[in-house]
């Protein structure tokens, strides 16, 4: 187990450093003057120079790089150009929204995906085809289109759920959940497919193994073989896929947060991109990469914990 964590960290830490470097390079090394990017094409050269000086973009590159990286390592991602606040504060205050959405969507796709994949693998025949068809549809429906449809049906026509907005779980857990249902559905549906397919494949693989026959021959009932033994063995590859799904849910959150007006990282990204707030943009890239790396670590630990061959080392 310790070895699994150490190996993942040995990959993750350099990746984070590389991403931090790349996001620095994105602004500085590639063509385009930072001041120009901030101010846009209509600004005069004088104004651009003033902004560069004010934000420290006129210092030597090496100096800028070392100070940016040194600060980033300590959790300081710079200061927003637009609102003058620390980038990390802006992001920290918004991450609960995005995590609520992404975790909810991942849970939804895991539960439905595993169920669908199990039914496909076990029942076979028309149920398999129907399950796979449903899964294919889940992957093909764009989340933004689905979101529009969900709002139309459940918020506008049926008036069951709010159309837009967010309530923090600190204020009211019930309201928090109510406001999240539609966004979670919109983001989560696309994740069902991958998990369903992975589950189906893993189940079919496990079910063709010798030990399944041993269990059946020993009189272990079908239900226990399927739900306990087969599912447990099939869940090892599925766990990695759940980690992967979570990451794609983060991407889906960008669009869905705007649609539902959720004050999360996604909507914030769009806002800082619109405003060409360079420190914020760099910060978002590094920050979200760190989240992905943590999720990958958790997925590795989960898969290792489920696999006695790895756990016992």
């Amino acid at each position, binding site marked *: 187990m310790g070895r699994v964590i150490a190996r993942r960290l040995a990959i*993750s830490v*350099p*990746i984070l450093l590389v991403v931090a470097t790349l*996001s620095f390079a994105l602004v500085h090394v590639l063509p385009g003057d930072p001041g120009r*990017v901030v101010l846009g094409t209509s600004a005069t050269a004088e104004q651009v120079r003033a902004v560069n000086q004010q934000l420290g973009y006129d210092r030597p590159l090496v100096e800028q790089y070392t100070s940016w990286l040194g600060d980033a390592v300590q959790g300081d991602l710079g200061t927003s150009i637009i609102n003058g606040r620390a980038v990390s504060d802006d992001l920290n205050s918004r991450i609960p929204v995005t995590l609520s959405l992404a975790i909810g969507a991942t849970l939804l796709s895991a539960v439905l995906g595993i169920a669908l994949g199990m039914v496909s*693998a*076990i*029942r*076979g*025949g028309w149920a398999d085809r129907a399950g796979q068809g449903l899964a*294919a549809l889940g*992957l*093909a429906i*764009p989340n*933004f*289109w689905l979101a*529009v*449809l969900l*709002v*139309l049906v459940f918020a*506008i026509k049926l008036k069951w759920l709010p159309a837009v907005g967010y309530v923090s779980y600190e204020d009211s857990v019930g309201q928090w959940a109510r406001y999240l249902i539609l966004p979670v559905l919109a983001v989560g549906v696309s994740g069902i497919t991958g998990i369903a397919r992975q589950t189906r494949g893993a189940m*079919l*693989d496990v079910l*063709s193994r*010798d*030990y*399944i*026959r*041993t*269990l*059946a*021959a*020993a*009189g*272990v*009932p*079908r239900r226990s073989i*399927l739900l306990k*033994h087969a599912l*447990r*063995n099939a869940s*090892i590859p599925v766990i990695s896929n759940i980690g992967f799904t979570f990451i794609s849910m*983060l*991407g889906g959150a*960008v*669009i869905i947060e705007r649609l539902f007006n959720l004050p999360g990282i996604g909507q914030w990204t769009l806002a*800082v*991109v619109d405003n*060409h707030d*360079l420190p914020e*943009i*760099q910060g978002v*890239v590094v920050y*979200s*990469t760190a989240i*992905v*790396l943590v999720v*990958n670590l958790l997925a590795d630990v989960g898969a290792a914990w489920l696999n*006695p*061959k790895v756990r016992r080392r």
Partner: protein
Amino acid sequence: MSARADVRPTSFGRLRRNRSFWISAGWLALVLVASFGAPLLAPYGSNEQNLSDLLAGPSGHHLLGTDDVGRDILSRLMYGGALSLVGAGWATLVALAIGLPLGVVAGYFGGWADALANRFADLIFSVPGLIVLLAVEAIFGSSQWVVMSVLGVILSAPLIRLVSVTARAARGELYVDAAFVAGLSHQRVVARHIVPNIAAPTIILTASTLSLALLIETGLGFLGLGPQPPTPSWGAMVATASTVIYTDPWMVVPTGAVLILTVLAFNFIGDAVRDAGPGAQRASILRLRGRDRGRRGADGAAAPLLTPPPATDAPRAAAGAGDGEGGAPLLAVDGLRVAFAAARGDVAVVDRVSFEVRRGETLGLVGESGSGKTITGLAVLGLVPPPGRIVDGAVRFGDLDLTALDDRGWAKVRGARIGYVAQEPMVALDPSFTVGSQLVEPLRRHRPGSRREARRRAIELLSMVGIPQPEAIFRSYPHQLSGGMAQRVGIAIALTGEPELLIADEPTTALDVTVQGEILDLLRSLQTELGMSLILVTHNLGVVADICDRALVMYAGQIVEEGTVDDLFERPRHPYTEGLLRSDPELGEIGAPLPTIRGTVPLPADWPTGCRFAPRCPYAVAECSAAPVAMAAPEPGRLSRCIRIEETMARDPLQEARS
């Protein structure tokens, strides 16, 4: 040769017959023609407005209605399609241009190249793609080409992974090594052996890359970050639809449908290629489809490959076989046929097998690989792997008809009255659960009681099968056991229900020679101790001689000889048995060359109509192949499926060979 090709259609043939492949390809062709031919084909210009007809539903003038400023939706979808498809296509091309060469080099050469390519893929997998795209967009402005190129880089990561893994697997194949030995250059080996192996998986992934790129491209368009208005784009049109959805919901239908159908088409094409590949079909005893198909296939349509019935077999009772100490046999198998569904009909792999097992008896089931002995053993337990199934015959166990049992009925038999020991102990135990829990679960099912009691009994069983530290093994996982230890655990599991009959399928074949004897001794002592009957499936005559009372010799799905072990070994009454005895190194004469039976067991579809052993038999005459051969009783207690037995019996060939 042609017959086998019919049984297993080629990948290409399967693809050609896949309806969803053709429908998807047709839709994509339509979208491509409509999009790129828009200037010629579209009924209206992309920005032609009809201000008197805003947000109209479908009509003769506007087949898919009009948008918020009165533009024809169909025309705009056609014009917008070209941009979206080119964007998605470009991103996919970039992904392929990066992923294919990197993946091939990484997988083929391994080492540093592999490490570098994989770190690159790790890096890309770790950054949230959409956020990077937005950052790029903020800094470079919304140039489609730049954004789509960056998307291509992001989408190359899964390709690198897939191609490198596939190329490495192909590189490891023996025929690739052989190609090197033959002096082929790297380029030739890659072109001839690696590329064909990575082609199908790459096509499948390319299809899903295209659909993902299209979804992201339209997503950006939806956010207003794609082509800027008034240029039409699929994503922006959904965005427009979403702003008017409360008053005019129609517009969301065509704009969403064209996108969903196109993404579906890409995915279906990928699925069709995947399903056409080899190994796409897998089956399990627990998968219902196997059973359903079995029932469906049981009717006459599937019959042609089943052989015609042989001349009437000699009545078993008359021959006196299996009818010794009186009383009803514990197990009576009568006319058992097991067939596997194949493309051209059923193929019988076990053909009218009849035998009996008495209480306390050890019966050997002997034959080469492919003789049907393992399937016979599994058929008794109702565990024939799909697509195989029992098509005929009766299996009576005590007063139960095993062929008629449902799940509930089997629950009282499997493990409880009939135990099963598998061939390869290392893969026959569930790797995710401890030995203890794999014993406790069936124990509690067979003898309801407390967990404590089951645990005590489990440890008792473990020491009974000769495991020195039962408590430690109880807590172990299968991967921590040696093969011999795992087989002892397998036997303990089979004993949890104190069965009356134990079926052991090659229980020693996968083990070291030194361990084989121990496991056989264990089986023998357990059998006498517990008074069980034992069916020992084996190809090893030494094992049969060692512990069996009686033996059945199987060849090509049939029993060819039956008798007591002493009789069989002293005076074989079938040329196949004789051949087996002669070619057994343990029974042969030291210093003399070891005779072999020429040829191998043919595949079930190729079994001859007459005597199935005739093509390999040294005594075969034309008559042997004329018609199916019936079982005959050459002497009391013996059965043999040979028409020349009277002649061969006179010679006592084994004695001749030995002297």
